[in-house]
């Protein structure tokens, strides 16, 4: 039986082993990803992000219960930070997801960010591909508890849900660039707490200042605009704001409706395909950067790098001059 057959037949051991190979960037992992790639593209990738303690994991738990009632298979990728000093991590998102235990239609995998910034691990996108190919209709990706700039999720997910809670920030926080900008759906969780009206008001005023606008992805210095088949403003998506109390499951069915409405909007406007392309381009770029780096490290001896760095430490040359010198050494080696 081929790998993809095992995955699609629900072989959980094959699935979990493949994820480990992918995470460790082994040859088997790369071969597995190559095999499954053409089976991807059916799952709805839903990103859940927000500050630590806003209730992301509890909300993911409730959303998963809902999708299970609809008969959909649900994969959850839960990312938590790695220690910058030891590389170790405590991954605690499962604690909030115990309602999902014992259900063969749910698969939860925790990931440590392993030094990656931006709220995801380097291989989170690859994990999403594996789950997608294995036939999970819903793939939820819970980011590291995000501050203001962990916005990688918007490039990976079809639908990004940003979770806020009362009392976290004022209207100035709400007009800054970054995490609120990437929301397709905004959630004010813990809506039974005081201050919920203020939080909602701040988010609303942010939306009124910023919308309607087209979603334009900047990359390669090139702006990639989302062209919709219809040119009227009805083709623009204005992020809805939903109140939830995740611990009690309140507001969750309305949130599921908003997420479904967003997916429908992406299909109608043609943005689904654009987002897929942007994601694949970004993923390829990231892999290329890694490949080039390891190529460079193979070509230029460690001693050479150290000697150049020695000049930087002594302030004889600047880091930028050091890069030019290293590039020169590299092209010398290439020509030799």
């Amino acid at each position, binding site marked *: 039986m081929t790998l993809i057959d095992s995955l699609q037949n629900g072989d959980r051991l094959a699935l*979990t*082993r493949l994820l480990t190979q992918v995470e460790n960037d082994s040859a088997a992992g790369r071969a597995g990803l190559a095999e499954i790639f053409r089976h991807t593209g059916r799952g709805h990738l839903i990103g859940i992000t927000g500050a630590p303690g806003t209730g992301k994991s509890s909300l993911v738990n409730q959303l998963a219960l809902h999708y299970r009632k609809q008969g959909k298979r649900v994969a959850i990728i839960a990312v938590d930070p790695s220690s910058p000093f*030891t590389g170790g*991590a*405590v*991954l605690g998102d*499962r*604690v909030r997801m*115990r309602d999902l235990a014992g259900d063969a239609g749910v698969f939860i995998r*925790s990931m440590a960010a392993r030094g990656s910034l931006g709220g995801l691990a380097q291989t989170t996108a690859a994990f999403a591909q594996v789950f997608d190919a294995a036939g999970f209709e819903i793939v939820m990706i819970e980011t590291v508890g995000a501050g203001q700039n962990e916005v990688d999720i918007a490039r990976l997910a079809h639908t990004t849900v940003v979770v806020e809670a009362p009392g976290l920030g004022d209207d100035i926080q709400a007009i800054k660039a970054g995490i609120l900008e990437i929301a397709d759906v905004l959630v004010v969780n813990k809506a039974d707490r005081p201050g919920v009206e203020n939080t909602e008001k701040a988010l609303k005023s942010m939306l009124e200042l910023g919308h309607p606008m087209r979603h334009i992805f900047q990359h390669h210095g090139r702006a990639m605009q989302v062209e919709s088949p219809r040119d009227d403003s009805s083709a623009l998506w204005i992020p809805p704001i939903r109140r939830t109390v995740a611990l009690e499951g309140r507001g969750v069915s309305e949130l599921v409706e908003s997420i479904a409405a967003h997916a429908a909007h992406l299909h109608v406007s043609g943005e689904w395909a654009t987002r897929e392309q942007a994601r694949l381009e970004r993923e390829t770029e990231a892999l290329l950067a890694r490949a080039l780096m390891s190529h460079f490290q193979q070509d230029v001896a460690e001693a050479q790098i150290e000697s150049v760095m020695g000049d930087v430490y002594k302030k004889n040359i600047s880091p930028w001059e050091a890069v030019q010198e290293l590039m020169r050494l590299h092209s010398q080696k290439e020509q030799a």
Partner: protein
Amino acid sequence: MSERKIRVLVAKPGLDGHDRGAKVVARALRDAGMEVIYTGLRQTPEMIAEAALQEDVDVVGLSILSGAHMALAPRILELLKANGQSDVKVFIGGIVPDEDVPRLTEMGITGIYGPGASTEDIIREIRESVRST
């Protein structure tokens, strides 16, 4: 980037509600550079085996203070094996009477630690057990 991280599931089966020890161990393993998946209180053997499978861990650490280890440990070992994960090493921390230790070791528990055990010993023995496979 292909550095192999040791992944450990720390779980508390059974009904006792004291998880300070489990948290201390989780933190110590984190500081030793391991990735610790913490699952919280009152886990059934089925929940633990399922989490071990989904997380593809190298090691399962059980915190048991209730005295139910002779019932819980074999059940968890059995479920791991049924899932194809008989290579996963299982450690127990908590209150285990001396006379139970040989029987637990015989059924396949890799390490058993009582009160006062040093986290250095736990870390070293986890590393050795994972390296030996």
